[in-house]
């Protein structure tokens, strides 16, 4: 059985495309077999909703009278990067509001804008002959800006280590609150619903792939930062952080239901983002890949009290175990928590299915593939000569 993206799009147009979510397809393949399922189903939709720190927005505010070349910009007192053209700025999710102990950051500015709220813009400049104005204090919103799009350098990690804590004190990490003496385990993946776990070698996902991003239609822009392929696999699927995507999409079409600011106590702010990717069932291999279930997807458990980049995994656990609410560590039952929302991941896969069935969303072939062979380097304190 072979099927092309063009054929799938024709079926979408004709209104007879068959779509299932990556969760629904599991029992279907179990009862019908891969061959039959591949024949019947054209597209399988995936979804994830989790904290994605490497996210942010490019904004263009429009020109004031007289014009200003903004050099220092804040949005609701959160600094944005303005070292680009006059009235362009980039606001990153983890940037914190100025002042002590703020629980408000760039992610909140992004959520507020998407929710349609006005945001206070303050900018200063040294002034130039062509841009004489030296400061401005005003309000902007999604309606008032010329462009406002998320451009996220790293989203939708293929897989991620689960965290625990062997130390005597509670740790506040980007993996959440980790209770002392292996008091709990936190993990962050939609497992069997997760986009890149359903196409582990990225056969169908590449540059230009159309995706669901925060409720809007977005695109894969590039390989994500720290993209790597040399990760140990089990059943052909990476068992740790491997591939990920740089994504882009218009904030105007996004919904606060799928873009949510988070504050991780003791760590800072980050953005929870909903991403969904449709997987075209090109052949039986693809159907086999998308029918993977939580029993066959694994994550390493690492100890976050080890303050080093080389944390050795304590053990590998399946997402079925993690999702059961308890896993066994050193002979003791430990409760587990997810940082990403399985409920929202499921909603995203369902919404994407509906959009495809209704002909509102068609599939794309990658404009260019993502790297097939990439490793990840480290940062050393080195001399100028050694850096080359």
């Amino acid at each position, binding site marked *: 059985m072979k099927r092309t993206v063009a054929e799938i799009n024709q079926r979408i147009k004709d209104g007879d495309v068959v779509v299932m979510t990556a969760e629904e397809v599991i029992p279907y393949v179990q009862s019908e077999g891969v061959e039959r399922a591949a024949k019947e189903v054209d597209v399988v939709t995936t979804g994830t909703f989790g904290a994605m720190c490497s996210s942010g927005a490019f904004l263009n505010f429009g020109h004031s009278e007289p014009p200003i070349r903004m050099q220092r910009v804040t949005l609701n007192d959160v600094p944005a990067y303005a070292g680009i053209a006059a009235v362009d700025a980039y606001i990153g999710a983890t940037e914190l509001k100025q002042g002590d102990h703020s629980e408000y950051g760039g992610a909140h500015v992004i959520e507020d804008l998407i929710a349609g709220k006005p945001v206070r813009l303050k900018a200063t400049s040294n002034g130039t002959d062509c841009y004489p104005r030296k400061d401005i204090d005003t309000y902007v919103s999604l309606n008032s800006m010329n462009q406002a799009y998320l451009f996220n350098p790293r989203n939708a990690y293929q897989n991620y280590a689960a965290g625990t804590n062997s130390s005597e004190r509670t740790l506040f990490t980007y993996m*959440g609150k980790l209770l002392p003496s292996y008091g709990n385990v936190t993990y962050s993946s939609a497992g069997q619903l997760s986009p890149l776990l359903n196409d582990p070698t990225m056969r169908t996902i590449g540059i230009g792939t159309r995706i669901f991003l925060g409720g809007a239609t977005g695109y894969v822009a590039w390989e994500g930062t720290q993209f790597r392929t040399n990760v140990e696999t089990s059943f052909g699927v990476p068992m740790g952080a491997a591939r990920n995507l740089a994504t882009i999409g218009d904030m105007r079409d996004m919904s606060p239901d799928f873009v949510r600011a988070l504050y991780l106590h003791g760590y800072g702010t980050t953005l929870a983002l909903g991403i969904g990717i449709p997987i075209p069932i090109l052949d039986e291999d693809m159907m086999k890949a998308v029918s993977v279930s939580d029993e066959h997807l694994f994550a390493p458990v690492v100890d976050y009290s080890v303050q080093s980049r080389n944390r050795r995994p304590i053990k590998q656990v399946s997402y079925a175990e993690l999702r059961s609410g308890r896993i066994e560590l050193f002979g003791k039952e430990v*409760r587990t928590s997810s940082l990403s929302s399985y409920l929202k991941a499921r909603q995203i896969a369902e919404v994407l299915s509906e959009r495809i069935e209704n002909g509102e969303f068609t599939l794309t072939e990658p404009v260019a593939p993502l790297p097939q062979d990439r490793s990840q380097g480290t940062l050393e304190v080195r001399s100028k000569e050694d850096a080359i």
Partner: protein
Amino acid sequence: MAKKKFMLGFSPELVNEAIVYRLVKDYDLKINILRAEVKELGGRLLMEVDGKASNIKDAAKYLNECKVDVQELANYVEKNEERCTHCGVCISICPVEALTMERPTWMVRYDPEKCIACGMCIDACPPGAMKFRI
């Protein structure tokens, strides 16, 4: 029989009173102390009381007479359903399983009856959905 949770506030001179003993002995209440703090300005005691409704009422009256500040803790901690993303971060944090993952809906349910107002979930909840009332 009734089960209720109370937060008792004491002034420093009351810290030495055998209040809990009286509650058990005179009002026949089963008492489960959930949290206790003693500071310079007095103390606070969070307890669950189990007993006859009329006895609980009389006990509260006795405490008031002793100048103990008595507050019933019904819905002391609130979950904002709009903010909650149903991630489940809180479920391994809550010591009494007042927050649980409902299956197969994968929605996180909060049972205020079980909550002992320990506050553990409040700084753990990433979107800030769990908050103390007041």
